[in-house]
């Protein structure tokens, strides 16, 4: 990539943002999105408010900005179970993601290490992994609800299931592809199995493992919104679904923005950790 001037990029980004907001403002003031809807299936889907014929215009950028400001200035209020601050909802989602992700890492990294070291184990487990990996994590939800009988723990389980595969496969790949000459160095220095594992294989595979963790946290943050829409109760996914039922589109747009920002922050934290363990050959 050629060197870019950050100031010019920033100016262009601001311009594009202004154009986007302008177009949005224009379309919301000319009535786009307020058309009468008659399709009964659609009415059933959007719920009571829309079905009774209430007209909800798509919010203008200023309405959304005002709502965002309201949420940001008072994120942690509790007014009953169905009306809690957006900060609390995000905290619920984050806690579930971190719990599921941590459990997945605790299982996937040691297991991936073993699989990467042993071609026998790799051959034996690979068919299972190949079948389980492409399953949508939400497909596990009914089974989880049935066996665990707790919606919150079920969401954590779904996060666990979806974040375990990238970490498992990346760890196994990183460990299996450690350069032979580094292993030979360890052998000529008479390093034991543990010292070789922690001082040679782990640092050698660390960038690949961290890449797996970064993919996992991204998927987990995608899945938690859907999982919480499904099981309800608390969390940002439930918040979005609840505001949909209230037909409060400004709240939904606000939540979408915040989901994006938090996803980016999670990704950047792991990107930083990846850089910390990176090495140049």
């Amino acid at each position: 990539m050629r060197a870019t001037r950050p100031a010019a990029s920033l100016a262009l980004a601001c311009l594009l943002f202004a154009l986007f907001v302008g177009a949005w403002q224009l379309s919301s003031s000319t009535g786009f999105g307020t058309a009468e809807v008659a399709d009964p299936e659609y009415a059933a889907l959007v719920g009571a408010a829309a079905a009774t014929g209430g007209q909800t215009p798509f919010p203008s950028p200023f309405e959304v900005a005002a709502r965002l400001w309201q949420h940001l200035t008072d994120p942690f209020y509790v007014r009953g179970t169905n009306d809690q601050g957006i900060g609390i909802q995000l905290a619920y989602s984050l806690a579930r993601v971190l719990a599921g992700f941590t459990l997945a890492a605790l299982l996937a990294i040691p297991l991936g290490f073993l699989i990467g070291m042993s071609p026998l184990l790799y051959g034996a487990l690979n068919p299972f992994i190949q079948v389980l990996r492409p399953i949508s994590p939400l497909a596990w939800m009914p089974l989880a609800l049935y066996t665990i009988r707790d919606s919150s723990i079920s969401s954590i389980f779904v996060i666990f299931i979806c974040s375990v595969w990238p970490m498992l496969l990346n760890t196994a790949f990183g460990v299996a592809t450690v350069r032979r000459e580094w292993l030979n160095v360890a052998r000529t220095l008479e390093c034991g199995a543990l010292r070789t594992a922690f001082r040679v294989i782990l640092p050698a595979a660390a960038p690949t493992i961290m890449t797996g963790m970064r993919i996992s946290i991204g998927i987990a943050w995608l899945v938690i919104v859907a999982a919480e829409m499904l099981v309800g109760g608390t969390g940002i996914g439930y918040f979005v679904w609840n505001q949909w039922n209230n037909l409060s589109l400004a709240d939904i747009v606000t939540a979408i923005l915040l989901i994006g920002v938090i996803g980016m922050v999670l990704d950047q934290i792991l990107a930083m950790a990846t850089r910390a363990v990176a090495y140049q050959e």
Partner: protein
Amino acid sequence: MRRPFVSVEGIARRFPGVSGAPPQTVFADLWFGIEEGEFVCLIGHSGCGKTTILNILAGLDRADDGAVVVAGREIAGPSLDRAVIFQSHALLPWLSAEGNIAFAVKSRHPDWSRAQVAEACRHWIDLVGLAAAATTRPAQLSGGMKQRVGFARALAVSPKILLMDEPFSALDALTRGTLQEEVNRIVAETKLTAFMITHDVDEAILLADRILLMTNGPEAKIAEVVVNTLPRPRTRHDIHHLPGYYELRNHIVDFLIDRSRRLAGAMPPEWTARAVPEVRPAASAAT
């Protein structure tokens, strides 16, 4: 029969043939010895099996037949007593130069305190002239500096035998010359037993007491052992003025250009694998 310090006794190495081809014998029934404190070089064309021999001596690879006996004991695997300097330096890229050396020091002395390890590292870093680059990672070091770190790492385990696989082949001529002199000095000072693979005839004449000449593969053989009778200490600057230097050099170059290929299929009838003939081209010229 008296055994030399390192005794290679009839080793063979075969690799399975690719897709149904018959197994390939890299070499078979190979015999040679290295005396304690001796510097032996192995010269041969690419692919004749030099690295394979060195890996077997290091214990990283196993011979299919025969054995390697060191100080009366058959080797069964790698050992801290046999340090290896790899062709591709093989430094751990996530550690600094000092970290790589410390890793070796801690392998030899797991009970040492942090201060003792640091002290030892400083000693080896100074010895190979790397003080300014101690905290630098390998990727930021030049080829010559990387090989210096590799050399310090090998010495840091206080080995009895130093095994070197074309350690200077990737370096420019100037750096190579400086490093050759340093290796010459350090190996002489520490009285190490050394075995080195090289492509470079002048390097072999400068460093080695004996030079093993290997024919082309497959089924490569040690055709001849050239005894280097040029007096020590030798330096790059005056070695070519020593009487007998050109006879020695020509003998080896002739072997590489012509006889290594000609002998590959048909060794002369008087040649035997167990007692490879020794020649002294420099001595016969000097007298």
